[in-house]
């Protein structure tokens, strides 16, 4: 965007962006540095030696995977319906769905709490997966619908002329062509599910059901507020997400560029 012709101008640009990015790096640096203070790598060993930590990871993975599967399936079906099929009063349904975007999760606490207890969901994965999925779907549908709308109609018509059914159109056109936006949805859903704090805090009471976002709090008790161990646990819980983002970064950007909110 910026055109810089001189060599000094280019160097200046590089310096400016480096200075601007430093404050973003600082907390990350403080986190890693703090986690290595005192016992050094011993902090990590101590954290990894805590029984049950593995269990927290597994719980989070199960919940995140469950939410991702539900959100992906439901969103792709809906994006195809909203984007390419005819629905009477389509915009009304769409706005009903979008209104859910404004809903803060705290509002769901009491109703879900009583409902989950009534149906025996309380303290199970479902008590977290279902509401998280419900909260993620509207944004995912918004992204995916724009993307599906951008697929040329001719492709679907050609498929129909060739005798393909609606379901084939979905399987052979929508699913493969939406991969970039699916990556964006995957990242957003993963972030939302992996990072959620409130639902596990309230709906998962027993120790073996806890998720990793509750780990720092858990270690406050476990290590009587030993900051270095808490930070080591923070670094450990952050790694999977950072890795996932780095792996999907390219696709993610392509998806946003093509289907971004406009």
């Amino acid at each position, binding site marked *: *965007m910026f*055109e*810089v012709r001189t060599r000094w101008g*280019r160097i200046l*640009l590089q310096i400016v*962006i480096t200075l*601007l*990015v430093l404050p*973003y790096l*600082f*907390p*990350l640096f*403080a986190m890693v540095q*703090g986690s290595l203070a005192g016992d050094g790598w011993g902090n990590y060993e101590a954290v990894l030696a805590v029984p049950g930590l593995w269990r927290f990871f597994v719980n989070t993975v199960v919940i995140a995977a469950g939410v991702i599967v539900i959100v992906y*399936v*439901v969103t792709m079906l*809906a994006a*195809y319906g*909203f984007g*390419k*099929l*005819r*629905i*009477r009063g389509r915009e009304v349904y769409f706005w009903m*769905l979008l*209104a*859910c*975007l*404004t*809903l*803060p*999760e*705290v*509002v769901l*606490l*009491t*109703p879900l*709490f009583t*409902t989950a207890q009534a149906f025996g969901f309380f303290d199970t994965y479902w008590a977290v997966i279902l509401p998280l*999925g*419900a909260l993620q*779907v509207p944004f995912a549908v918004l992204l995916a619908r724009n993307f599906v709308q951008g697929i040329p109609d001719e492709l679907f018509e050609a498929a129909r002329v060739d005798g393909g059914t*609606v379901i084939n159109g979905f399987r052979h056109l929508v699913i493969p062509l939406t991969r970039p936006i699916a990556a964006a949805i995957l990242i957003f859903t993963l972030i939302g599910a992996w*990072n*959620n*704090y409130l639902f596990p805090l309230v709906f998962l009471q027993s120790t073996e059901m806890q998720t990793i*976002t509750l780990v*720092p709090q858990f270690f406050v008790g476990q290590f009587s507020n030993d*900051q270095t161990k808490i*930070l080591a646990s*923070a670094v450990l819980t952050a790694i999977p*997400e*950072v890795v996932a*983002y780095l792996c999907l*970064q390219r696709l993610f950007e392509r998806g*946003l*560029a093509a289907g*971004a*909110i*406009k």
Partner: protein
Amino acid sequence: MAETSVAERGVRENAPAVSGGGRRRGRLQPHGLPWILPALVLCVGLIYYCIWYTAVISTWDWDGIDPNPEKVGAENYLRIAQDPIFWGTIRHTVVFFVVTFVAQTVLGLVFAVLLHSRVKLAVVYKVIIFIPVVLAPAITAPVFRGIFAPDGQFNWLLEHVGLGFLAQPWLGQESTALPVLMAITVWQWTGLTFVLYFAAMGQIDQSVIEAARIDGAGNFRTLVHVIWPGVRGTTLAMAILSAIGALKTFDIPYLVTVGGPNYATEFLGTYIYRKTIPQSHVGYGAALSIILLVLALVMALILQVRGGERRVVR
């Protein structure tokens, strides 16, 4: 406009299809309702049920356990109207929204423009800016509590750059706790603004920018007159998302300051939680929730309508 006409056409085509059976009209698009049904059942079913349930509870004086709660009508709402803590949360939310939105927009825009220019190692910068988005507030909160503690890294930094006189207990006093939370939020979410702007800028027609340059526009004028209008859609979407985000704010204030000191960082979300779970005033919490919901919807509508008007004017 094209959007609505397509939708209307869809409705009209649909009407005879329902009575006469859509099968014969092979060339028309098939029914879409079954495809969107799962999403509707999950979201609208679960969420609208919860809203209705919350609305009912909000007229009770309920501790969450009592099987026969007392029905009190609008009393919870009347009490909220006179609750100074509630008005405090509204003030904090407004300040929080304005400051974080402006800061994120400016920073996101600057980063997007700089990284669209010829900068070396652009991927590294992108990743650094986006990583905070990926990290859970629950994970970063202990880090920030450490950084802004009286003996934390931030005060250490101030002392080492000769600004030691500015060192203070950032989170422990009412005047600085909220600004620190806003800084943390900006740190966390700039990456998202940046990525969306970066994507939107990629869509601006390069020939328009070149034309502006040929007409003699410098970098700054190109930014103001070509790029900024070109990403208006993204700015509007971000305004809606941040406004709703500000109303929803929970994790960061709850985990970093627990709404304190002396309610200086209490937000609607943390206040609802405090009332509902630790204090067991479930009815009161539900009434707060309904107010929060109405505010969020009104906010989204206003921004949507204003944005629409501006688009028409343009």
